[in-house]
């Protein structure tokens, strides 16, 4: 039986990212929860979070957030394409290495979406918001990774 935990947690991450939680100007600063879940599961259980599910979840998030349809899907799929060939290496590494990998990935994702939006708006958009969001995403990753790892051990078992 295919375990649904990775898909369920990633869908939850997509819903959480559009929740109006209210530390001031939260919307601007919502961490990229979906990217965290994608990175985690692509390293530890990529078989339970296949590419089509990433496409659907990314599209769901874009349609709900009123953003560009397809943007999150592209980001998540590219993240998978980048991480998957390196997972055999990453899976054996201690957490700081995993975190460093996530930092690189998130930085890349931020530049990608900033370039995309700047291109479509035909002007260079302000980078402060995206940078702040990226920093928040990177700082929040250990918590997300801990929670996902716990649920994984409880429900699936290591690969």
């Amino acid at each position, binding site marked *: 039986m295919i375990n649904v935990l990775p898909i369920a947690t990633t869908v939850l991450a997509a819903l959480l990212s*559009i*929740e*109006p939680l209210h530390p001031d100007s939260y919307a601007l600063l*919502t961490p990229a929860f979906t990217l965290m879940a994608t990175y985690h599961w692509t390293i530890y259980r990529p078989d339970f979070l296949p590419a089509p599910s990433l496409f659907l979840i990314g599209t769901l998030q874009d349609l709900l957030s009123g953003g560009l349809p397809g943007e999150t899907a592209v980001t998540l799929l590219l993240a998978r394409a980048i991480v998957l060939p390196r997972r055999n290496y990453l899976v054996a590494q201690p957490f700081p290495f995993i975190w460093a990998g996530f930092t690189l990935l998130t930085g890349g994702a931020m530049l990608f*979406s900033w370039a995309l939006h700047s291109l479509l708006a035909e002007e260079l958009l302000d980078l402060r918001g995206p940078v702040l969001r990226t920093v928040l995403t990177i700082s929040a990753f250990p918590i997300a990774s801990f929670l996902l790892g716990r649920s994984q051990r409880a429900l699936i078992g290591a690969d």
Partner: protein
Amino acid sequence: MRISPARRAAIERMSVTLLVVVSAAMIIAGKADQVAFQYLRNSVMDTAAPALDMLSRPAAAFDAAADRLRGFITVYRDNVRLAEENERLLGWQQVAMRLSAENAELRDLAKLVPDPAISFVTARAIGDSGGAYARNVIVNAGRDNGVARGQAAMTGVGLVGRVAEVGSRAARILLITDLNSRVPVVVDGTRQRAILAGDNSARPSLRYVDSGGTIRIGDRIATSGQGGVFPPGLPVGVVASVDSEGARVEPYAALSRVDYLRLVDYGLAESLPNPLAISARAGKRAESAVGGPPTLRR
């Protein structure tokens, strides 16, 4: 059947490539013609509304608990302040009643056609665009509750945005800070008109200001009613900064913390183009066409 690792890798590569191409096509299609996605967006919004509503409850409860705790601590000071304020407002109430009576009399004298009656729906924010490139809010009221496109979204203190998309039980509000938002405004007390343009920052900017006047920090900004989306005179914000690039407006409503919204039907709009359907490029074209009465593209 076992699939060999090489075969599996090939399938993986092909499916990821295919899906990336499909997503890229969606981005382009979505930019060129957003109406195509509107139906999809509305149905996803409607379907997810109960889940979003449920998820937003713990957060709302937490907020309420924090507010309550703060309330306990400041209750004495608040009481003194409110008593003073009440005293002052009672004075204003007298003034308002007198003015209202006088106004009615003058309208009667002038045989003025009365404004159409307004009605409103109060809704709770259950979703919020999470990204850095859009500013909108999903509320838990839709067509079934009498929400319609083009209605003004207000908090008690000022304009927040307008209803951009309506599902049967949820609606999306485009905030005045969104990149696609353009609101014709007027500087209160003068006849100086401008367009309030959002750029995803907390303070939208004033563009196409009528020449011949100056805008100062502290000037109050209200809707001008041009273009027919909003009625004239809705409070929007105050000018917070003026520099060589133009003026920026601090909205009265705390847009980073929208809980409850009033969606007000002034009997206008409904026949508007969908604001999200207007690409950034089309938006620019519309702006450059603004010369006489502004073409309202919200």
